[in-house]
């Protein structure tokens, strides 16, 4: 079910401000790749450019061999790429179920996969099944993040992009969300995870990229990056990994 995502020489920005400079990155089918870096490095901008929310100035993005560069976001979703946006962007006044249904908006109403994916999402986050009729704005932060992931899954993606899913959440909730991501990866979904918590991201991902000033500064297998002196100094607080 996973597809390969390739980003080649991508440049993008806002108006005249260039943010991304020649970014090349790849997520193999069924792989979890993380993109780490400090605030303002351009991580979210990269996800927006890939998902079509921002038009790239140069470079190419291909999804399972199909070029999707500069496509409108609704067409990219139909190419089976879904984004869990920064800040979740839930439909606050709507119920949990309605949020999930809108997640499947890109699919035909009679698509049998929608019902199957709904079951899958509810298995992944049983809370969503219990709270179907609840107004989503009244969920806790962790529950909202689970709904945001669930909503993205309802489009039946082959590649899932996540923008800081751990932000502002309690460690226990973060663990639950990352456990779900591990499950999704084991089921074959390709995942590109943007995270500020480099420890966390590198513990779960297969490979990682480090972004600095809009360009890729480092890349490698997750465990190598975790041991890397530079990465440790800049993003892991300068101390050796002691957890686990």
């Amino acid at each position, binding site marked *: 079910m996973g597809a390969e995502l390739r980003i080649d020489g991508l440049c993008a920005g806002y108006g005249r401000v260039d943010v991304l400079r020649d970014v090349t990155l790849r997520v193999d089918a069924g792989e979890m790749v993380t993109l780490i870096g400090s605030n303002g490095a351009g991580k979210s901008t990269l996800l927006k450019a890939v998902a079509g929310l921002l038009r790239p100035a140069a470079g190419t993005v291909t999804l399972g061999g199909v070029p999707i560069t500069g496509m409108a976001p609704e067409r990219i979703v139909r190419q089976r790429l879904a984004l869990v946006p920064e800040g979740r962007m839930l439909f606050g*006044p709507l*119920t949990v179920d309605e949020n999930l249904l809108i997640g499947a*908006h890109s699919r035909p109403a009679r698509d049998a996969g929608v019902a199957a994916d709904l079951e899958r999402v509810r298995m992944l986050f049983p809370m969503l099944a219990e709270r179907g009729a609840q107004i989503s704005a009244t969920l806790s932060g962790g529950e909202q993040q689970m709904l945001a992931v669930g909503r993205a899954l309802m489009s039946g993606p082959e590649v899932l992009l996540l923008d800081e899913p751990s932000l502002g959440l309690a460690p226990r909730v973060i663990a639950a969300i990352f456990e779900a991501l591990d499950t999704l990866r084991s089921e074959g979904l390709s995942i590109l995870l943007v995270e500020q918590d480099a420890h966390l991201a590198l513990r779960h991902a297969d490979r990682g990229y480090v972004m600095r000033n809009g360009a890729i500064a480092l890349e490698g297998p997750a465990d190598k990056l975790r041991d890397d002196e530079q990465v440790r100094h800049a993003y892991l607080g300068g101390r050796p990994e002691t957890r686990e």
Partner: protein
Amino acid sequence: MIRTRLAFSPYVAIAIAAAAVAAVPVLSPDRYLLKVLVYVGVNVIVIAGLALLFGHAGQISMGHAAFVGIGAYTSAYCVGHVGLPWLVGALAGTALAAAGGLVLALPALRLRGHYLAMATLGFNEIMYVAFREARGITGGGDGLGGISYPEVAGLSIDSPVGVYLLVWGVALVVLLLVANILRSRPGRAMRALHATENGALACGIDTVGLKIRTFALSAGLAGLAGALYAHSVGFISPGTFGLDQSVIYVAIVVVGGAGSLAGPVLAAIALTLLPYADALIPGLGKDAVALLQDWEADIYGIAMIAVVILAPAGIGGLLTRLRIGRAGEAHV
């Protein structure tokens, strides 16, 4: 699969409304009352369209009176000058208003909130001037009189009861259509767009297409209401389609409640009837009616302020609370 929360089907409400509409001329064939109710029905059609655009999709239009005007003048001209049948004229009015909605959707693609309000307000002002100055078509500031009654299949609908039934028949069909849209995918997409445009984009909703289609549909309904109004009343003038009327439409949707259809429809009925209270209450003195009419704008204003402070979700919100309250009791 998923059960949407819906304690009270809008179809039931529309069926009850249909019965009430049919009952009125039987109970009281008063000409004045029927005339006032025609005006109420016309406003219900406009408000159904605006509830879709503003209440659900979150796109404000301070120019809906202009669309009503486009529908009214187009239909009156097509029938009166060109000699087309009324149905064709009404369709032309609806279509031209919808085309105007397409034009107004263009700024909506770039503007939000107050800026969109200003752009649509400007559109209403431009159209107001056009209605006044295009004398050859509109009759200018003096208005256009002698507009023929609606005619269907060669049959002129010229009795007060006939006009009343026509307008309310159309209004009920429109309500059915809008309720259907709101319950299906486009309705959900509109509410998603209202909640967060970026979230809607991330979910693969074509927000550009959605805005354009919703603007066109909403404006088209206003045009249809205008066409009905022109031929029911027989006289139209630019003053009816000015900015103040657009503001009233927006006020009605606010009082009725964003995200609701029943709320704005009830608000449209109540607020349109207000200056004609004597039609409902036969004993009401002329002075009292004059007072209501003088204070009409103030009453609308106070109603709006009261809603914003006391019940931000409007009448629709109160209805929902009522429903949830009853459901709660049932569980106990």
